[in-house]
């Protein structure tokens, strides 16, 4: 990637108060700047609100920001011009929010996105809602019209804090240039501490332009925000006893395990006590799927064996999961024999959907360690483990690949997995391709699975790949497994990938349908394909070339391995237009609100 993305050409700002210009031109000020430049450790003092905003980001260790310019955010961009923070100009603000979100998932610290007021800010909303549902750490900074115009329906004015309140962990409206930097520091701390989430600071232009020499405070959450790290020892003891006496124990690892960096302790716990491990979709990568104890993912399109295990266990240890309905199916039939031990940092998740018999509020890594200490004897569950293995062979995830039919998507996902290393990162759009990416890729490491879980946002894949690429190590491949419909929603991001020379591979599983909808229409709407038939798809390989990326195309099995090899090997953005079987469907499937143990293996069983 180019060292400094998008240099901003300084513009004459008529509104700039004259005194400020003369101020910095005085010999005194110049001398001061010089001495300061000599000592690396003392940065230039801040002179206005915008510089204080950027200083707050620098203090927080921010290296990258994703965004789009605009009138109300211009002062902040002007301050960014002198900063070491690399700004990546996106083609659309939605892309900026998804890129920042993906950055947050891969890097484990908040991703930053910037947008101007009005349409810039509203374009961020999908990405904010997405990050909110998935508890991803992210900070959005939005420009706002000058304070005196706020509330008057001024040009490009939107009530951004009003619009984003339901989809952010917290937001604030800056009212004071002396405090605006601290507002940003606080937003940064809030985004990552406790249960992570997106935060937003709305920045009226007069606040960022006004003079101030107040340096922002270091990132720190407000005093009213406290997080409980350790769970109640008495309940830990009781839960440990329950585990010891359990005959059919199972661990259910959610996305919170990855966020809390608790994968390692969970692995140790599971392996030491030989407890089968199920993951939720956001929990993919928390436990190695090639391990014997792994039952892989449960839920609507989870594996048959994971759904059998979750349905038949007698003790379920849910960690960092919020029991989303796509996981539980019908509440009445979810783990109906199981006493639930629930570990979560957010007290509000305890007994929200599924009643917790042993509620353990605290940091996942800390509480699992507490539990590890408290469990004296492993459960006697030999029969149960054998049963789990039996289910794995009964319901193995296999598929047919008849030579006379178009390429099956599962085959492509497996081929991509084989062609990349273990630590490769997968991003996806939303639809069938996303589910095949869950089912047929073998995840072994945390922070390698980047997808839109709770909100289910089509168009997430490509901008997420951009954010993931920026956060990833150089030796990590980044693969976006996308759907044709999803790709079409945000493919302008290709211009960014090309400009920044980002090494990502997009495999568009092209079925000329918005396939997941077609699948449901076939199953539940008598095959009436209302508005789901996308027979007018562009040729994605040629489209990629028009953007300056490398285009590839796969039509038959013989192309698969070599083409994937070439695309992965290509040093820069590449797009493979993979023409798959348009009729391919995702199974197993638990219909919405259904019983997980009654998953269908074919359409006839729905």
């Amino acid at each position, binding site marked *: 990637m180019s060292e400094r993305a998008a240099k901003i050409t300084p513009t004459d700002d008529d509104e700039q108060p004259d005194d400020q210009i003369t101020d910095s031109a005085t010999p005194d000020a110049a001398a001061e700047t010089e001495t300061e430049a000599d000592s690396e450790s003392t940065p230039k003092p801040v002179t206005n609100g915008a510089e204080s905003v950027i200083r707050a980001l620098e203090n927080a260790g921010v290296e990258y920001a994703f965004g789009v310019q605009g009138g109300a955010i211009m002062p902040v961009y002007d301050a960014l011009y002198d900063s070491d923070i690399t700004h990546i100009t996106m083609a659309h603000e939605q892309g900026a929010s998804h890129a920042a979100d993906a950055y947050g998932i891969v890097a484990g610290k908040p991703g930053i996105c910037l947008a101007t007021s009005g349409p810039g800010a509203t374009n961020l909303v999908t990405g904010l809602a997405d990050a909110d549902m998935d508890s991803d750490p992210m900070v959005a900074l939005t420009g706002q019209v000058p304070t005196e115009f706020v509330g008057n329906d001024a040009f490009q004015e939107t009530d951004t804090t009003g619009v984003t309140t339901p989809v952010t962990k917290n937001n604030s409206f800056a009212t004071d240039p002396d405090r605006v930097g601290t507002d940003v520091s606080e937003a940064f701390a809030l985004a990552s501490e406790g249960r992570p989430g997106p935060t937003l600071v709305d920045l009226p232009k007069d606040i960022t332009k006004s003079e101030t020499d107040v340096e922002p405070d270091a990132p720190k959450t407000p005093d009213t925000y406290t997080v*409980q790290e350790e769970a109640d020892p008495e*309940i830990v003891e009781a839960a440990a006893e329950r585990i010891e006496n359990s005959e059919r124990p199972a661990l259910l690892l959610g996305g919170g395990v990855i966020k809390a960096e608790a994968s390692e302790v969970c692995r140790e716990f599971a392996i030491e006590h030989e407890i089968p491990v199920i993951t939720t979709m956001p929990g993919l990568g928390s436990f190695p799927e090639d391990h014997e104890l792994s039952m892989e993912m449960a839920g609507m399109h989870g594996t*048959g064996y994971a759904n059998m295990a979750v349905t038949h266990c007698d003790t379920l240890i849910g960690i960092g999961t919020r029991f989303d309905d796509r996981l539980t199916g019908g509440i009445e039939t979810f783990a109906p*024999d199981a006493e639930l031990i629930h570990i979560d940092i957010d007290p*509000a998740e305890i007994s929200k959907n*599924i009643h917790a018999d042993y509620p353990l509020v605290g940091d996942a890594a800390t509480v699992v360690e507490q539990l590890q200490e408290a469990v004296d004897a492993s459960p006697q569950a030999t029969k149960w483990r054998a049963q789990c293995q039996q289910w794995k062979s*009964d319901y193995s995830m296999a598929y047919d690949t008849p030579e006379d039919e178009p390429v099956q998507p599962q085959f492509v996902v497996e081929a991509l997995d084989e062609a990349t290393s273990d630590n490769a990162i997968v991003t996806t759009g939303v639809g069938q391709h996303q589910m095949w990416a869950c089912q047929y890729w073998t995840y072994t490491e945390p922070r390698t699975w980047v997808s839109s879980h709770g909100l289910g946002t089509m168009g997430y894949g490509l901008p997420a790949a951009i954010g993931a690429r920026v956060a990833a190590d150089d030796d990590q491949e980044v693969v976006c497994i996308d759907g044709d419909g999803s790709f079409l929603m945000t493919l302008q991001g290709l211009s960014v990938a090309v400009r920044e020379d980002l090494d990502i591979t997009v495999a568009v599983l092209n079925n000329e349908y918005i396939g997941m909808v077609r699948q449901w229409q076939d199953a539940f709407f008598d095959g009436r394909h209302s508005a789901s038939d996308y027979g007018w798809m562009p040729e994605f390989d040629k489209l990629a070339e028009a953007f300056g990326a490398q285009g590839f195309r796969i039509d038959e099995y013989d192309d698969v391995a070599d083409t994937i090899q070439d695309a992965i090997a290509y040093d820069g953005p590449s797009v493979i237009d993979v023409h798959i079987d348009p009729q391919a469907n995702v199974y197993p499937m638990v219909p919405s609100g259904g019983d997980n143990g009654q998953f269908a293996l074919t359409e006839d069983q729905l």
Partner: protein
Amino acid sequence: MTDEKRQQGLEGPPPEERRTPAGRRNKQGIRIDPEVEATHKPRRTVISALVEHEPGVLAEVSGLFSRRQFNIESLTVGPTKDDDRARITVVVEEPDPGIDQIKKQLRKLLPVISVRELEPDAMRRELALVKVDAHDPAAVSAVAEMYDAKTVDSSPETATFEITGARQKINAAVETFSQFGIREISRTGLTALARGTDETAAAPSTDATASAADEANQQQTQQYTQTTTDD
């Protein structure tokens, strides 16, 4: 990938041949005996929240109630002895798990300092202004006296009364006044305080999360009684 794998499709026993567990949960995710229906019936309760007195708090709180579909009966806000703090009193009607959820979700809002569900013996008051036709002033006054209603305005045709008290008292007053013909009513919704030295919503901010966690923990011991439903 082996050729053998290529040949298989998804297989295994179909749904009807699979064993299903005996247990069941109710709609609130609580394990129950499948023979009986067990649900928590909604109950009316008063939740008091001490919040930062800043713009947008009310929108944040009311937005939380509406987007989570909590059934809100009334909501009042007013200043406290501390200029920086306001008190929000909410009457809700929900089953127990819903009430727990409301308290926990409220505590998550940053401007919310503390949240408490009031005891049934808490002092609760509502105020109503009732404008009635006053063609028969004597009869109207008699009713007003009966309910301790204060006259706040009178004209040749109308009389307006202020009534304070519990909801039932106001309801009864309104019903009795209706014989004269009610022109307009305006009611405040309920406000409440805990009795005696008991503090309604304690100020120490660091308790907010701790008590949320405590409460989450307490649920373990909470007994969910199973009852057969009437219907």
